[in-house]
């Protein structure tokens, strides 16, 4: 395609296990699109709706959300992003990089032992991406509390740790 600008709307999904890696990769993709095809692409980022930021800012000690609840919140944030960022960009014939997108949620659901069918159906409202970029990253290593807003996986990891700290080791069987 050379340096000629692409005019067709395109959705590129960037997914991975670390928020900062996803953000970095999204910037790289954007730069590459500009350099190679002279395409200006916008980036749609996690928590555009501010829901997770509000949860974090509330600073509630009892911030203990289960994986399914976290995914419902992720879905509501993604619905917001589709309505205000992804959808309008595609409608205007522009290219948009969704970082993160559906595969990040699927990876989290797999890790949490939730059925993949549930999460794919939950997010079926999200337009299909034309290209997928895997940002990589690993879940190894402890996520510090201060990194909770780096990305969805980090937020969920911190929440899950708090949940485990509160959870008794063995379910009570008496009565």
């Amino acid at each position, binding site marked *: 395609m050379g340096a000629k600008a692409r005019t067709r709307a395109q959705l590129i999904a960037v997914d991975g296990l670390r928020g900062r890696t996803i953000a970095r990769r999204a910037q790289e993709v954007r730069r590459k699109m500009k350099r190679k095809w002279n395409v200006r692409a916008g980036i749609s980022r996690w928590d555009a709706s501010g829901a997770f930021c509000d949860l974090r800012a509330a600073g509630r000690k009892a911030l203990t959300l*289960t994986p399914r609840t976290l995914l419902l*919140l992720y879905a*509501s944030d993604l*619905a917001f992003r589709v309505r205000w960022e992804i959808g309008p960009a595609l409608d205007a014939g522009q290219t948009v990089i969704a970082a993160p997108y559906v595969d990040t949620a699927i990876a989290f659901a797999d890790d949490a032992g939730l059925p993949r069918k549930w999460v794919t*159906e*939950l997010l079926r409202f999200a337009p299909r991406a034309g290209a997928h970029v895997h940002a990589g990253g690993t879940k190894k290593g402890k996520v510090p509390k201060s990194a909770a807003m780096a990305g969805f996986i980090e937020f969920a990891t911190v929440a899950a740790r708090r949940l485990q700290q509160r959870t008794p080791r063995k379910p009570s069987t008496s*009565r």
Partner: protein
Amino acid sequence: MRAAELRSLVKARERSRGLLIAFEGPDGAGKTTQRKLFKTWLKSEGHSVVTSKWNSSPLIKPLIKSRKKIHALSPLEFSLLHAADFRHRLHSKVLPALWNGRIVLADRFLFTGLARDAARGLDLDWLLHVYSPLFWPDMVFYFSVSSGTSATRISAERQPKFYEAGQDVTGDADALASYKRFIGRVIREYEALALIFQFVTIDAEQPMYEQHRRIRDAFAGESRRPWAKWNVDAVTEWLATEGAPPDGR
């Protein structure tokens, strides 16, 4: 713990667990009044009772409230945030209380989400999926009123709020006119759910005490839905992620 162990825990808890009783119906049907009367009576009979209201998760309610205030929610976002609120309450309040043998009275339950969201045009099959694994109450009392009665009762006290009136989907600037249109759709959805999910229908246009007696009678002949058959997925997921609370929590 393995899935089989969790399932056997659920089965073993069946006899000592509490009952979940849901109060459903359109606004202005008198659910809250009846729920309070019933709670008082249950306590007088020596039962330990907990109430869980719709959209009351201390974590998620503030998110919803602030976004409702500026009319910022689409039907999809509205639905997903309420589903998150529901799941958080189910895991943090409803299931721990039931596990410890307490009766939980739910002032609206998942059927509220289903009826309102379907009235907003969302697909019922998708909604059932969003709320899955479904957690079935032992009994659902559906307070049946006409849309006219609901609108009259609501407007006697206050102006319907933006989302309550369905103004986000009707586009009608007149809140009461919008409410009348929207609540009709909600009632149609409720009536379909009442048939499918076998609600106990209470004629909410009857005198208050008649309704209360009907609820007591239905409770006396209660049949619980065995968790092992109806709710095993929801309860085992909760046990796996949160663990059962210590007795008496």
